[in-house]
């Protein structure tokens, strides 16, 4: 196959990977701060995707345009979930928390199945068939817009955590729970806020992914797993790691789909996961536990 085919697929993979990165970033933030493994991550994204699909088929509203409202809805959902339910589980054993979120994931997936049925749905944006030509490269408009939006949102998020007071407070909680309480931070509220932010990330990512892929209720668990692979590969708790992991996975998936059969591409993500867990469990950017 000629080189430009590989190149095109690779670029497409990188752009998709940026969106994956944003999705995984939500998971990483939640884990890094609240220390809860959000097994319902992909399912929350599926909610966002279905909201976007409904808005599109009813009002022809582009998902990227609806990104902010949808992210806001997911933020609220995440906030309430954490404040109302998950907060009680902070002190419970790890597998209890995990199973709580498994239960939530099951409920979400099947509720969506009941509401929307098993058939796949998608969004045909106005620019669905457009593409840009840069030299030998042909880039899909959908992937380009999605990727760029992901970069914008991610940068915004980094800025929030680095430069705002609230962001700093949240990072303080992550570093030292008791210490944060001692200096008067309302840790439970900050946890809820963080979960909300993580949910908002995933809501935004969902809008972007909808431009590239179809949605069925079953994609929830698949995306949860993908988010975990990315976060573990990049380093649990590391924000840049989530992005690097996302791009890496997006790239490998795309190329694997090209070289082997498309349906086998997820096998590579798992192979990478197994290798990372064995040889560098802290991930690319993670710090090794002392």
């Amino acid at each position, binding site marked *: 196959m000629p080189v430009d085919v590989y190149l095109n697929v690779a670029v497409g993979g990188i752009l998709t990977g940026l969106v994956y990165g944003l999705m995984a970033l939500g998971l990483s933030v939640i884990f890094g701060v609240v220390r809860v*493994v959000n097994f319902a991550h992909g399912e929350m994204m599926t909610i966002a995707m279905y909201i976007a699909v409904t808005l599109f088929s009813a009002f022809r509203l582009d998902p990227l345009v609806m990104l902010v409202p949808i992210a806001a809805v997911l933020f609220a959902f995440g906030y309430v979930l954490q404040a109302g*339910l998950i907060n*009680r589980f902070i002190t*419970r054993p*790890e*597998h*209890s928390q*995990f*199973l*709580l979120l*498994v*239960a*939530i*994931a*099951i*409920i979400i*997936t*099947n*509720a969506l*199945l*009941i509401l929307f049925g*098993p058939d796949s749905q998608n969004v045909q944006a106005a620019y669905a068939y457009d593409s840009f030509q840069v030299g030998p490269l042909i880039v899909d408009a959908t992937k380009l817009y999605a990727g760029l939006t992901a970069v914008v949102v991610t940068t915004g998020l980094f800025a929030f955590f680095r430069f705002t007071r609230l962001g700093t407070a949240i990072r303080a909680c992550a570093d030292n729970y008791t210490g944060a309480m001692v200096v008067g931070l309302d840790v439970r509220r900050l946890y809820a806020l963080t979960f909300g932010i993580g949910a908002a990330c995933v809501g935004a990512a969902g809008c972007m992914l909808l431009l590239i892929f179809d949605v069925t*209720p079953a994609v929830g*668990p698949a995306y949860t*797993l993908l988010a*975990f*692979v990315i976060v*573990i590969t990049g380093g649990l708790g590391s924000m840049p790691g989530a992005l690097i992991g996302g791009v890496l996975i997006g790239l490998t998936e795309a190329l694997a789909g090209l070289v082997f*059969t498309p*349906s*086998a591409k*997820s*096998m590579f993500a*798992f*192979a990478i*996961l*197994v290798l990372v*867990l*064995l*040889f560098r*469990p802290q991930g690319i950017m993670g710090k090794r536990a002392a």
Partner: protein
Amino acid sequence: MITRWTAGATPRGLVLLAILLIAALIAPFFASDYLLTVLILILYFAYTGQAWNIMMGFAGQLSLGHALYVGLGAYAAAALYVHFGIGPWLGLLAAVPIAAATGAFIGYLAFRFRVGGVYFAILTIAFAEFARVGFDHLAWTRGSSGLFLPVAQYSHNDLWQLRGHPVMFYYILLAATVLAFIGCRALLHSRIGYFWLAIREDEEAARAVGIDTFRYKMIAVVISSGMTAFAGVIYAFYYNNLFPEQVFNISRSIDIILGPLVGGIGTLFGPIVGTFILEGLSEGLRTLLEILGVDVPGIKQVFFGVVLLLVVVALPEGVWPWLARRFGLTERKQ
């Protein structure tokens, strides 16, 4: 001798157990065909739940990919039957070692490299998914189009080939569940059982008292996966068709853990009680919906999710310990 076997149970509990056993033995004579299939499902999940329980409840390792062993066992026996005419009981001789070896492999990777807790759970999910996608492309087992076992109308039950009326499967699964229960009880009260409990409670402290935790975790994994393969063989010969999408699906893995979770992880009766409750309630729900004229796919799963949620929040130890205390079925520990 008898007292050793019945130690820990109150007279009331023993009587109840005896009644239930008798009921289980005569049930097929009174049950409708449909009810029989429900009972078979209950026994299937009680058995696999017990097998899973060994890894989680006893040795403390959370596996969310147990469908892998069901699938491997099912496909191994089915493929041997379809290609070489080898019967299921002989097929077991291949199915169990294959599943046990896979379990050992996963266990070795995980324990050698100190992968535990949530990471271990994700690793198990990854392997099951790997198998799901992998078997979709495996020509020898007909890939995603599915592997079908030849079914003909039989006038009698062929125990050797596992061809015949569901009643045959019912009694096989009943025997398996009872044997699994007895086996687990024996294990739990043995040296290995104590070491498993120690590992589950506090692995580092267990090492500090000289327990080779790697070895005993491996034993738990191998027994658990091997036992589950048997269920896989039964699955293959009962349903007579296998699709990777269904057999290795993560929702199957979750179905397996629901029984023990609801009933009580780490207890002997937990998987059985939990499965009974779940299937019983689910059947109740189904009948209710039928009466109301509602037919929606996915309601049963939502219901399971809600039950799981309630149990995790309100009864983290599971229903069985609460039942046992409430009705005085076992001797109390202070």
